[in-house]
């Protein structure tokens, strides 16, 4: 089986989700016999290719027209590489980039796609996968028909591989820029710089919900506790809708999926859509004034009370040590 992992990067290194995707690809390759290559797209991406080469063979598609993550062009290149190299399985981590671009590439490649895969096995020589449905209430066991197959995996479900002993080869892919689609114009991305780790990559996540009344309180209580623990901040949908937090912090069915070692939910009631995004965390703590909040049913430790009163105490005690 020839496996192609589509990498996502920050122009310097590949993202941790891509490492998990390579972990999945390696596992399938070992079980079924096969090869894994990692496709890096962008412009002036030598550092990214070098980084990827520490864990995988690399194909580098480097040209100015691919500098920004524009769906039609990136998908065109991914589909072309997959076809020309007779790839059997295209893999990526399930991120907004992959949902947008690898989804479109899958459309160009015949639509055999499974999203958000959390487990797999080889059964009778075929790849059988598990994926959540209905906001995680149901886990379906699926397999794909058609060729090639396209799979996005949940990064939280797969381990990144250890670095290889020596750098793997990097092969440049020639791109004919004049053949690329040109109907989407990338203008800008408005990302808020943060000193905190990414919510999908942090070992500890502190999330805030409806109990937080404004962005100053969110920063002071949720941000303050996250900083005291060296963790990331997350948010329920309610706070994003209210304009208190930005959308890239939203944890849940339609937001980000996280599974840190420790998840602390502050004033989050625990709608199923939120639980879908964090219920695989190792240890879950809920603090809420409502003793009947559904969040407690998903928690290992629960503390009933006002977050405005309890969280400053927590921060103070952590700092005192």
């Amino acid at each position: 089986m020839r496996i192609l992992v589509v990498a996502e990067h920050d122009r310097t290194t590949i993202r941790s989700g891509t490492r998990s995707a390579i972990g999945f690809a390696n596992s399938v390759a070992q079980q079924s016999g096969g090869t894994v290559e990692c496709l890096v797209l962008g412009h002036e991406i030598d550092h990214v290719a070098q980084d990827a080469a520490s864990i995988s063979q690399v194909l580098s598609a480097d040209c100015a027209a691919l500098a920004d993550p524009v769906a039609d062009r990136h998908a065109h290149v991914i589909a072309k590489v997959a076809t020309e190299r007779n790839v059997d399985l295209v893999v990526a981590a399930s991120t907004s980039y992959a949902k947008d671009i690898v989804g479109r590439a899958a459309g160009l490649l015949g639509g055999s796609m499974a999203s958000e895969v959390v487990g797999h096995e080889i059964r009778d020589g075929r790849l059988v996968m598990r994926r959540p449905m209905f906001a995680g209430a149901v886990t379906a066991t699926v397999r794909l028909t058609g060729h090639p197959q396209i799979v996005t995996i949940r990064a939280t479900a797969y381990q990144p591989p250890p670095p290889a002993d020596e750098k793997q080869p990097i092969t440049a892919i020639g791109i004919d820029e004049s053949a690329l689609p040109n109907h989407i114009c990338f203008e800008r991305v408005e990302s808020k710089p943060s000193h905190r780790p990414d919510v999908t990559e942090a070992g500890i996540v502190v999330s805030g919900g409806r109990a937080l009344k404004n962005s100053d309180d969110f920063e002071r209580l949720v941000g303050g506790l996250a900083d005291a623990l060296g963790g990331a901040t997350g948010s329920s949908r309610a706070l994003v809708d209210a304009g208190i937090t930005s959308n890239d912090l939203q944890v849940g069915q339609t937001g980000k999926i996280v599974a840190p070692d420790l998840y602390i939910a502050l004033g989050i009631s625990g709608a199923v859509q939120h639980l879908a995004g964090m219920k695989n965390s190792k240890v879950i703590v809920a603090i809420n004034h409502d003793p009947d909040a559904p969040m407690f049913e998903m928690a290992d430790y629960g503390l009933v009370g006002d977050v405005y009163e309890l969280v400053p105490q927590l921060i103070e005690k952590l700092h005192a040590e």
Partner: protein
Amino acid sequence: MTPMKILVPTKRVPDTDQKIRVREDGSGIDEQHLPFVVNPFDAIAVEEALRIRENSADNVEVVAVGIGSDDYESELRTSLAMGADRAILVECAEVLDPWNVARILDEVVKRETPDLVLMGKQAVDDDANQAGQFLAALLDWPQATFASQVDFDERRLRVERETDAGIEVVLVDLPAVITTDLRLNEPRYASLPSILKARKKPIERIDFEQLGIAIEPRIEVLSMESTSTGRTCVRVNSVDELLDRLRCEAKAI
């Protein structure tokens, strides 16, 4: 802006407030007594199409599309009651995966030649997040997924997209496929008079076989099971007890 046509594909899904139960034999979910609604993201797409029409000096036609059995009529009536001009029901009894939904929509688009397809970024039943991207690929149209703001810029659309990195802004040429995210708008409720009026609006029925395509299954669901969620919550009485347990018992900090 010139006259335009907006096609809004809508899916019928179980109400998100309902508890989903898997049938005992694992063959699927138990749909008995389950209320169905228009997929919430598709309702946002209907609303956005209506707002484009309301803000335009020119004639804008909003066409809702459903694919499925007769049962889909009630969800199409919901879109009509919200204000869609007419609806198309592609009659198809088979269970469709996103690839086949996109192929059917591809044929509907070729018949209707809309300027814009607006649809939800994902259906909250299979949570696949694929059909819009597949349709854009099949049509070779530009796409802007996960839209939180859509504005006209001459004959292009400026779309703000919700991405992992923050809000991304792209300009797309028309015709295009736009998929909607949560914060694009808040869909209106249909008033009683508009519900009554919607009963008289036309729903065109097309047998999917008339579209000249055969279903090509791509994803085969072998079985389903309820995801186990149970945890036993230890209620602690103080901040000190919480920190102590996180340190000594859970070894989480």
